[in-house]
């Protein structure tokens, strides 16, 4: 990502051009830089690279978690099962895939808009703002099982806090968790509360890096607060926004724990089951069909690659 690669040219620029040969330290060879990345690279290859290619290999086998890689080779049969509409596996896979897409569409703009607004608020000067910064960030430190159970109980139809509050206002509460679209909304609310602090803190850091004289100049020219936000804050934040949007799309696509705990993938038939939960159930609960689950993982990963590339392209042309 741009934010990570940006600082690297700086040290190289320090040496005078043409004199680099003489400047090379004793013992420094062409492979020296690679030695420096070797510790990370070896862990990366072992923990991510190898499982990735092994996963592709498994997806070509008729493997269960009992047979493992000793299963017969079946070529693209698992993929065919996902793409052939007549196969009994394709319906549920695409249903859960589109469920995930729905969640991405619902959650990404919501999470970006709210975190942008929160960051702007927290960037202004007011009493105890550090307390608020900490408060908004705090839920992000919790695990998904904690927040899942917390909101599961809050949305309970009998004795749930949310339902009681709505009832106390004299209104009839919708049946969260067990009816649509309320089940999705419940998952979205839990996700916003849980993860909003992360985006907010990154955007806030970005806002703090914007030079104050820009705002000063704008206000002298008569720009109001909204115009300043629109024409100074947003354009200056663009690289950070790219990062946040990209990370958020990936995070939303990786939805798993919240529906697993809050709605159990219901109501009632997989309507809030994300594709990764379906993949997990297929591979690791019954029927232990890891060949098929691996094929699902490959398809989802390819989609993610495409989405990320489009995302970067879109933002970089915007910037140019």
């Amino acid at each position, binding site marked *: 990502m741009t934010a990570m690669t940006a600082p690297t040219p700086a040290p190289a620029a320090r040496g005078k051009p043409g004199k680099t040969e003489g400047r090379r330290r004793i013992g420094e060879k062409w492979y020296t830089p690679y030695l420096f990345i070797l510790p990370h690279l070896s862990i990366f290859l072992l923990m991510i690279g190898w499982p990735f290619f092994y996963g592709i290999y498994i997806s070509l086998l008729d493997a269960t978690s009992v047979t493992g890689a000793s299963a017969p080779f079946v070529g693209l049969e698992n993929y065919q099962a996902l793409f052939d509409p007549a196969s009994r596996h394709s319906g549920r896979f695409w249903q859960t895939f589109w469920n995930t897409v729905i969640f991405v569409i619902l959650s990404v703009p919501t999470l970006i808009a709210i975190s942008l607004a929160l960051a702007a608020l927290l960037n202004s000067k007011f009493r105890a703002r550090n307390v608020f910064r900490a408060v908004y960030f705090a839920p992000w430190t919790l695990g998904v099982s904690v927040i899942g159970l917390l909101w599961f109980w809050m949305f309970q139809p009998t004795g749930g806090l949310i339902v009681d509050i709505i009832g106390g206002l004299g209104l009839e509460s919708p049946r969260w968790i067990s009816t649509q679209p309320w089940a999705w909304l419940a998952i979205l609310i839990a996700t916003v509360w849980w993860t909003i602090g992360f985006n907010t803190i990154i955007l806030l850091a970005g806002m703090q890096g914007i030079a104050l004289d820009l705002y000063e100049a704008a206000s002298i020219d008569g720009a109001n607060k909204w115009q300043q936000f629109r024409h100074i804050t947003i354009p200056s934040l663009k690289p950070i926004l790219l990062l946040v949007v990209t990370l958020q799309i990936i995070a939303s696509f990786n939805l798993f724990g919240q529906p697993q705990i809050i709605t159990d993938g219901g109501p009632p038939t997989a309507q809030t089951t994300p594709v990764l939960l*379906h993949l997990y159930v*297929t591979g690791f*609960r019954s029927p232990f069909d890891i060949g098929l689950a691996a094929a699902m993982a490959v398809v989802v990963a390819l989609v993610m690659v495409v989405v990320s590339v489009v995302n970067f392209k879109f933002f970089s042309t915007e910037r140019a």
Partner: protein
Amino acid sequence: MPPSGSPDMSPSGSPDMSPSGSPGEGSVIEPPATAVSLDYWTPFTGADGDTMETLVERFNSETPNVQMALQRLDEWDTQLNNAQAAGELPEVMILRIDTVPFRAATEMVQPVTDLIEQLGVGPEDFTEAVWNGTMWKDVQYSVPIDIHPATLYWNRKILGEAGITEAPSDRESFEAALQACQDAGITGPVWSNHFFSASLFWASLFYQGGGEWTNEDFTEATFNSQAGVDATEYMVGLVEQGLHPADAAADTEVSSFESGQSCMAITGIWQTNRFQAALGEDFGAAPIPQIFDQPGSWAGSHTLAVRNGLEGNELQGAYYFIDWLSRNTLEWAAGGQIPARVDVREDPAFQEIPDVPDIAEGVEGAQYPPPIPGSGDLLGGPGGVTEKLLEALTGDVDVQAALDDAAATYTQILNESKEQYDF
């Protein structure tokens, strides 16, 4: 989601069950000639794990020649799969009854026919249903230690105030109790829309109506029969009559019953200790009421199996332990389990345990999915009965069409599975 309603037993007020008088002695199995240490893996991570540890410690102290090393594992199926792939299976392991055929077909465990012969036991020493559930292709692969059926819990105080002093046992008394709760303004759910509650009730009703999961040669899923439709429509009918909420969220049958906001709860027997602790004197337990023609209830069972390839002294030691454990299940029963063996159920000490014997009265009606790999999915798997049931409870669904749809899916799965496992 790992069912939060799954066995988590806190033994409270366990009665004194000294081994004297219990059928602890008199094994016909000889201990092995030389000392062996064996691994014994269980999925018991809660209070049931503590009970099992006590039992294993007692066994170890009584039999110096056989030492069992107990392991409690949480990601049970995955860990067994991994151990099998790595060739590191334990000598003895617990298998849930509906996984026995799958584990047998994939050669994780080996037959225990010779143990059964030596013991001279048969279906009449357990129950016929639990006995048949340990078979794969007519060969026995494990020995049941317990039976855990779906259970009707009832609040003696709330129902007592409405003049109901006996546990509801049939359609009339069950519906009268529901009505009485409504009238008293106690409207918490009796079942929740979750496998370990609504589905357990459904399966019980299905068995009561004489339902069969598949045809005899397992080529066709038949739960869309009249029994399946009746079971679904009975539950939907209670909702439509306003006697039960449509969409009680998972586990609310437990939380409502525990806090006195409902007068009955339907879930597994393993909640017994929890409810005893919460409700004390007001607590009552009973078999699932008989709504249709015959007694019937969903049930699970923990069974003991030995890994494939075990032989010699190690096998002898494993057999010795299995026999001992299957006869020493009184402490185990107190945690909310019915002993699988008739002689333990008939032991006077068993009758001393609070509440569990009341539930055990329905033990003959306890039934299991057919003995083929993956049969537990018929009720709980993707596209299976549970999904259709929950759709019917919460929406306007043609019950017959929904069950036909699920049955068509599972007919396809059965045939794929027949080809894969050759049965």
